[in-house]
């Protein structure tokens, strides 16, 4: 008998003593009032992202290119193919190897969703965010989040995202607490996370 059939058979015989009926999942947690909305939600997002020792800079659409240029500074940046704005002097992603990306300092991308309560940004790796290696190997990630992309809670984010796409949820820079549980920022992922929050005003 194949391992597959044997395991499925074991599962079925293990469940001959299952209780009658279906299990109802109580979803009362969904009745919880969303802690914030509107401007307060964006403020909470900023506060919680900064709580992870990431930096947040607010700007308007008109100020965005200037803000990106300041964040990148003199360093070399790589950008995904579908970015909506110019990053002067940036290298386009043309499938560089991981070792080549390791020689690049900064990456500039957009994001898919921001979560206020947890201070999380989520990338779904569409063309304005690029493949996963792009935001992983360079040491400094500049991530542009539009205020309209921010949701209050984790359930709202899960509902907004497409599971068919690979997703990367990011809360602050890479970190470890493995040494005496004291938090150290910057292990294997980007050691600096800079969020540019674009407001409509």
């Amino acid at each position, binding site marked *: 008998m*194949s*391992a*597959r059939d*044997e*395991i*499925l058979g*074991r*599962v079925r015989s*293990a*469940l001959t*003593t*299952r*209780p009658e009926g279906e*299990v109802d*999942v*109580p*979803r*009362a*947690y969904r009745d*919880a009032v969303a802690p914030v909305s509107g401007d307060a939600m964006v403020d909470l997002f900023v506060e*919680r992202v900064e709580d*992870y020792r990431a930096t947040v800079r607010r700007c308007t659409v008109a100020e965005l290119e200037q803000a990106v240029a300041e964040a990148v500074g003199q360093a070399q940046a790589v950008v995904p193919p579908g970015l909506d704005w110019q990053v002067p002097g940036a290298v386009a992603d043309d499938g560089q190897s*991981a*070792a080549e990306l*390791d020689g690049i300092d900064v990456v500039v991308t957009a994001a898919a969703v921001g979560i206020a*309560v*947890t201070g999380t940004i989520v990338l779904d*790796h569409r063309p304005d965010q690029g*493949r*996963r*290696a792009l935001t*992983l*190997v360079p040491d400094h990630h500049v991530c542009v989040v539009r205020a309209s992309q921010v949701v209050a809670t*984790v*359930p709202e984010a*899960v*509902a907004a995202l497409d*599971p*068919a*796409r*690979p*997703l*990367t*949820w*990011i*809360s602050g*820079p*890479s*970190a*470890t607490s*493995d*040494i*005496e*549980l004291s938090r*150290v920022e*910057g*292990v*294997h*992922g*980007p050691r600096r996370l800079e969020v540019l929050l674009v407001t409509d005003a």
Partner: protein
Amino acid sequence: MTATFVGMPVFPTAARAALADTQLRRNLAHATSTIRAKRLSVVSEVEEWEDLRLAGAAIKDQALLDLDQHLLRLEERLTANGAIVHWARDAAEACAIVAQVARDHEVDEVVKVKSMATAEIELNERLAEHGIAAWETDLAELIVQLGDDLPSHILVPAIHRNRAEIREIFLTRMAGAGKAAPADLTDDPPELAAAARQHLREKFLRAKVGISGANFAVADTGTLVVVESEGNGRMCLTLPEVLVSVVGIEKVLPTWTDLEVFLQTLPRSSTGERMNPYTSTWSGVTPGDGPQEVHVVLLDNGRTRALADEVGRQALRCIRCSACLNVCPVYERTGGHAYGSVYPGPIGAILNPLLRGPGSGDQVDSLPYASTLCGACFEACPVRIDIPTVLVDLRAQVVDAHRGGVPSAQSVAMKGAAWTFGSGARLRAATRASGLLGDVVRRFGRRSLPGGRSALGRLPGPGAAWSGARDMPTPPSESFRAWWRRTAGGTSETSGARDPEGGPGTPRPNPGTPTTTGDRSPDQSADPSGRPAAGPLDRGVGGGAL
């Protein structure tokens, strides 16, 4: 690596050694108190926490009670998304599948994301037998691997090590495994983390094959989820050409939406953060992004055995957050190695016997007793696994597994107690005898308890082990029944000699007299300890024991 849990001593023996290690106890007390405080603070931010726990428990139950259907759905979705699904009955089969994939790609090394399932099947050791080096990339796992040590915590495997010990391990061992640590390395945590970054980056950049587990496997979308902090997970999941994920069959969640519960409860319960720094999800192969060959090994290795246990199957809800370890008074003092498994602490005390079967060995059989039954683990568990109840049930199964053969001193004592309690006359005789014994002992007693009451010294014979860890007060010289008769129900305390037949107030025999001690009667469930009714010698003995 040669370190292995095989052949570990039973828990009381291993615990005794751990308790004598003051460095270990200091490291653990610091670490567990830090993480308890962090967890408490972020859990208290969430008003609907209890509702999330209830939902999490129900989702996992739903997944487990229709596990065959969800596994088939998961396989179907993963295959449709370009992944290759394998099934493994046990550890040997799973390791052979992973080794075959590595051989097919002619590699002699792989990079690994920290994974409990691969630790459980001892994948690194098996790959080494095939000449394949498996590099752990989580900082704590790296410390354990370089130190030729064993993990002692589910989340923070090197929790038993302090910074000075870690510096020493890096200085002496890193060079033999790749890039050496800087010679001027200090014990500053950021410097230690930087050394690990340097050491591992060259491995990430050249690795062709990555190995991971998964925190969740969503059946209706074929999505695997890995939750981590350092970015080493993202490196292993993204950079190699080939990815192999070893996934326990209990990791299945029915729907994508179910993740909304666990992505709230897992980070807060485990590291005490609102969200862990990185969560990666993938649903098969993504053209042009990440590994273009993805294997998923669905692992049984005792999980169907645990599933068949009606009381114990709830242990398969476990999401490996390790909150139960951090609140456990036993774990805090003995550390994880004493449990002799990659799953230590309260969850390990039930998961190991459930996966391997009570009666399968003295070491496993000792684990359900490695608890005070205080219930803190149940309180902390984000999926409401009633660990104390499962522990008590497993104790009964361990006893049942050892029936027949030479009875133990404890079972002889319990049988004797049952016989004594079975009749009023026998109980009266016994209490009278214990009163006489008390008189004798008090005369020669050498010890006294706080409050001045005299206590027995260490008992001789089979009672020695029992009294070695407990203070036992001397029995009173007069039983309650005798006192009741002598004083006419307390109305004439000063009345003369003991009156064996009692006065006018003599009560009828108490129908509530305890009858048996060995049976697990339903009304015992009110007492979460499941401890048998106290015998006459037991009065006043407080506290639990390991």
